């Protein structure tokens, strides 16, 4: 679900085909019939943006028919844990959870916790706000629990306030009929999928869930995935071979750029960014962000080692290991928040590296307007992108709303090396780092990111060399020495990896994050990657063929943490440490050696912790995790069916309609996710939804997506002849029924209109797009791949022009996958007439700012 794997990950999809050959059954739940559906055993069409409803139906079926894996749920999840009496579910509060604060538009979370715990996440935070997500939503790695144990739980799971009972009540209204009416599928589809999953789970079998940006790009993106987590925990499909939830990424190394983040609110290894007021010192930071128990109980060691990696000799106990040098996050500085601040004149300059917001971001017109407010812009890419050329050439120039003379932004273009022209690693969905070697030198002035950033850093440090200003110390004291190699004096990427992996003060290499110390005697650039350079060897560069080792193939690449190929693999054995079944044997307790052993993977559980280990009340860190609790990153070692902390929009997923929808929320009185982030303003107006006047002006659901033949915003594929010719023009996909209704003719043109813009596309009338019956009405989908723009061998309008900014409050991703639109036959008007067309729609729909 939420993935078109055959099209977007064709290389990985070979393993799905192989699994099918060996008897696996593939079910594809997706609004469209895609190349993935074509290869599936069953395709279920659902309305875009109703994934939680569908999954809720599956969860409800599993709960109502007692198909959950009892022993797994009882011992390995928080199903038995009793919640606070003050907690109110969406059942009780008409679509809200308890703690809703309508004035601030956010939740106070003090009622969400386990009964008997403080009313807060670690360190006394009582509100989950989207705006200060640095140490809150991302950083809430759990609450403090004495001895790693929830104060109250009921192993019979019959207590009315235990998680399993709360879940059962919460999902009771997600009946097959109710779900089918929301999703536009048949009730039998819900039952069939639930039955197939339940049938294929348990001691003998496991099922996997695969998702991609079809789940994340929603105002409820995180909760889509939470819903899958609940299902997989109920069925016992986490930590076991053949199970799991596989997050397919949007690019080759998105996983890697989250682990060592290019995100504003986390540090390497998912350590939260400090907050200026709340975290004045290292001690306060650790107290606020690290629960005492579980793997995060050693946050101080991870943090001190990170600070040592960055500031080396300068980081000492006396100066709090340079904790004060770290930047502080005082608000939402995510992509869209930054672009809006830019639009308001609050950002002077931008380094835009490998990103093309003038085409690739939602509401691209607003993005370009923001870029025009910059003093300077640096674009690093393979060739000048629409973002690099926004000042000269854009749809806005064509409309006559801007001119090159009217834009003062100074733009610098720097050519970048491609992935075959630089060494480095890719991290895949399995957390597997795979090293790749440079095949050739980059041409001309093109350089790798490592080369560019390092030399830029050197120039800045040179300029600050004599500075006495304390604010320059973080730059001046940074460890910035790497061996240089090659034609372009490139920092050795191996040395960078070694720094990430970590070493002791004497220079010896670390084996795993268990070795990290909080006294400054170890340094490590990312605690989860500790050991990737174990024994002074680049472990990610191991390439022993799969045919020369067993199927776990542990001598190929390296997976964080601790080279674990299946994370939480303690769960592949029963509570007593025996395999759940011979067929699914993976990690088990070996009584004779007194340790965990496996088919070849490394147990990510403490190696000699016996299954019956019961931690003392005062235990901390991993010592506080019991011998039958596999989820060592949680303070209670349990998988969370219910999330007491960590999320801004509720401890359980609930179906909310997208920001723009032709339908009312049939399950709750609350139409959309109450915590979603919206930015109503002239350049970002929203369409009315069903039940609001004007909703019928934009009657169709619009979904944007990608094709195998192109890469994201197209600057890497529209410029390559062999790819450009394969999908040469922007097209939209519509059903024969919608085509008849709107007079759209196959192969000719259509104009798609939203309150943001109007674009033209060739028409593909296809049976692969099915009208769905929702709430007694027919729903039409307009499908729009978003690869085109103004630069390249093939060009065209960009679908992202049409989209509004409406974001998930946890991670600030925009709802690319669903909005509303109108569609007309024929090409769009040119010049000011396009603006006039959009204005006329706005007036008819009563859309103001």
């Amino acid at each position, binding site marked *: 679900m939420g993935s078109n794997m055959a*099209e977007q990950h064709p290389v990985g999809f070979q393993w799905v085909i192989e699994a099918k050959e060996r008897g696996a059954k593939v079910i594809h739940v997706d609004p469209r019939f895609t*190349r993935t559906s*074509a290869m599936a*055993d069953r395709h279920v069409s659902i309305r875009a943006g109703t994934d939680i409803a569908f999954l809720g139906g599956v969860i409800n079926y599993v709960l109502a028919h007692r198909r959950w894996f009892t022993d797994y749920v009882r011992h390995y999840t928080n199903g038995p844990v009793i919640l606070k009496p003050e907690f109110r579910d969406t059942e009780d509060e008409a679509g809200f959870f308890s703690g809703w604060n309508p004035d601030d538009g956010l939740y106070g979370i003090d009622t969400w916790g386990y009964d008997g715990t403080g009313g807060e996440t670690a360190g006394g935070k009582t509100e989950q706000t989207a705006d200060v997500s640095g140490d809150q939503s991302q950083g809430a790695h759990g609450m403090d629990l004495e001895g790693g144990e929830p104060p109250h739980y009921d192993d019979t799971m019959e207590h009315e306030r235990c998680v399993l009972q709360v879940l059962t009540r919460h999902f009771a209204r997600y009946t097959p009929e109710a779900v089918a009416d929301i999703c536009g599928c048949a009730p039998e589809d819900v039952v069939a999928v639930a039955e197939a999953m339940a049938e294929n789970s348990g001691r003998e079998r496991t099922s996997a869930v695969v998702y991609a940006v079809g789940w994340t790009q929603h105002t409820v993106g995180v909760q889509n995935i939470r819903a899958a987590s609940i299902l997989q925990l109920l069925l016992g499909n986490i930590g076991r071979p053949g199970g799991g939830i596989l997050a397919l990424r949007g690019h080759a190394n998105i996983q890697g750029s989250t682990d060592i983040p290019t995100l504003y609110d986390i540090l390497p290894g998912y350590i939260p960014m400090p907050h200026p007021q709340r975290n004045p010192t290292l001690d306060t930071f650790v107290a606020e962000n690290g629960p005492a128990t579980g793997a995060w109980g050693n946050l101080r060691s991870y943090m001190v080692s990170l600070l040592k990696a960055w500031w080396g000799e300068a980081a000492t106990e006396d100066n709090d290991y340079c904790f004060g040098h770290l930047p502080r996050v005082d608000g939402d500085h995510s992509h869209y928040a930054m672009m809006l601040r830019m639009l308001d004149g609050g950002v002077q300059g931008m380094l835009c590296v490998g990103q093309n917001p003038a085409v690739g971001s939602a509401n691209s017109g607003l993005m370009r307007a923001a870029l025009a407010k910059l003093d300077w812009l640096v674009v690093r890419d393979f060739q000048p992108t629409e973002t690099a050329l926004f000042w000269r050439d854009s749809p806005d120039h064509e409309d006559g709303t801007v001119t090159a003379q009217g834009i003062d932004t100074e733009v610098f273009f720097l050519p970048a090396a491609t992935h075959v022209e630089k060494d480095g690693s890719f991290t895949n969905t399995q957390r597997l780092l795979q090293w790749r070697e440079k095949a050739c030198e980059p041409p001309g002035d093109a350089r790798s990111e490592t080369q560019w950033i390092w030399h830029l850093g050197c120039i800045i440090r040179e300029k600050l060399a004599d500075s006495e200003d304390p604010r320059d110390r973080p730059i001046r004291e940074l460890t910035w020495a790497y061996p240089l190699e090659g034609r372009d004096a490139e920092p050795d990427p191996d040395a960078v990896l070694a720094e990430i992996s970590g070493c002791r003060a004497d220079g010896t290499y670390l084996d795993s994050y268990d070795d990290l110390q909080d006294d400054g005697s170890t340094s490590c650039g990312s605690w989860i990657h500790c050991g990737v350079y174990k024994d002074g060897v680049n472990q990610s560069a191991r390439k022993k063929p799969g045919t020369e080792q067993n199927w776990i193939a542990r001598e190929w690449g390296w997976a964080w943490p601790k080279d674990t190929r299946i994370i939480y693999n303690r769960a592949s054995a029963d509570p007593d440490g025996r395999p759940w079944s011979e067929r699914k044997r993976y990690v088990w307790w070996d009584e004779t050696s007194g340790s965990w052993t496996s088919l070849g993977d490394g147990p990510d559980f403490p190696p000699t912790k016996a299954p019956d280990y019961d931690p003392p009340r005062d235990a901390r860190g991993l010592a506080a995790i019991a011998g039958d609790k596999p989820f060592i990153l949680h303070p209670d070692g349990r998988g969370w069916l219910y999330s007491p902390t960590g999320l801004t929009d509720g401890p359980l997923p609930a179906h909310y309609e997208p920001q723009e929808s032709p339908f009312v929320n049939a399950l709750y009185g609350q139409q959309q996710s109450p915590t979603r982030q919206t930015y109503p303003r002239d350049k970002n107006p929203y369409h009315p939804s069903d039940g609001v006047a004007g909703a019928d002006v934009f009657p169709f659901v619009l979904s944007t997506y990608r094709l195998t033949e192109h890469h994201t915003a197209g600057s890497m594929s529209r410029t390559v002849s062999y790819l450009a010719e394969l999908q040469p023009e922007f097209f939209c996909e519509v059903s024969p029924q919608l085509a008849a209704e709107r007079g759209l003719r196959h192969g000719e043109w259509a104009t798609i209109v939203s309150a943001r813009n109007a674009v033209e596309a*060739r028409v593909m009338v296809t049976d692969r797009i099915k009208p769905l019956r929702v709430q007694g009405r027919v729903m039409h989908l307009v499908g729009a791949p978003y690869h085109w723009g103004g630069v390249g061998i093939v060009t065209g309008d960009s679908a992202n022009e049409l989209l509004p900014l409406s974001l998930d409050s946890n991670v600030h991703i925009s709802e690319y996958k669903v909005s509303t639109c109108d569609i007309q036959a024929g090409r769009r008007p040119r010049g000011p007439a396009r603006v006039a067309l959009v204005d006329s729609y706005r007036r008819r729909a009563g859309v103001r700012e």
Partner: protein
Amino acid sequence: MKLEVHTWPATYGEQAQPRMGFFTDTSICIGCKACEVACKEWNHVPMQLQGFTGNSYDNSVDLGADRWRHVAFVEQRLPADATDGGSLVQIAERGAAIDAGVQTYQEGDGVRWLMASDVCKHCTDAACLEVCPTGSLFRTEFGTVVVQEDVCNGCGYCVPACPFGVLDKREDDGRVWKCTLCYDRLRDDQEPACAQACPTNSIQFGELDELRERADRRLARLRDAGQDQARLYLADEDNGIHGAGAFFLLLDEPEVYGLPPDPVDTVRDLGSIWAAAGAAALALGAGLAAAVLGGRG
């Protein structure tokens, strides 16, 4: 099973290699077009921008001088009752397919989306090669059919001779270009670029007799799983070209994929045509002679 042709392997003597070819199993083609791209990159085949065709996801139209691999996309609407309990969807529903080990491909929701990568067939009886007056087209030591671009004079005789419409003249240089089965790579013990790039192993490269056995086994499995329309195309010698070096497993009639159902070596009947013409000439001559002589008589 007949693999030999009159110019191979005998004429190569000890240099002859096993006859190599492609088995394209369209039942596992996911339509990614990696074969088209890999072929063009390796062989420096120029871009052929033809715009939006509206022909499903196929914008490369057909094989030609500038396209040596081509992926066809066929969207089919299946009547709801067409499956009649025998389709793989329903077999999978019953769980029976788990035992058979094969499930549905490219079918569902009343819609079926067929994808298939087409290529030069490297015919056993290759008319292109027979009609080539310069010897530019030749049979390699691997039994494949290759155009030598430094010999081709652009006469174009081979173009109408090909029963599949594969041979084609490049507009700007007048010469004929087609799939070489990556002759250069074969000589370096490497598989052709398309087969190497194919992520699902839909394109399989190898010794032809081994590929044929593999294809028979695959077909049997699909048939067992109820895919009764599955068939092999050009796998044996029982056709008008006496078999192909590149053959296919199809899930429907060849015409559905744009392939000729009954391709014929276009020079197959040349001998009998000339014989008939000769006989006709003789008869005509005899008649004329008779008329003349008779007139005199």
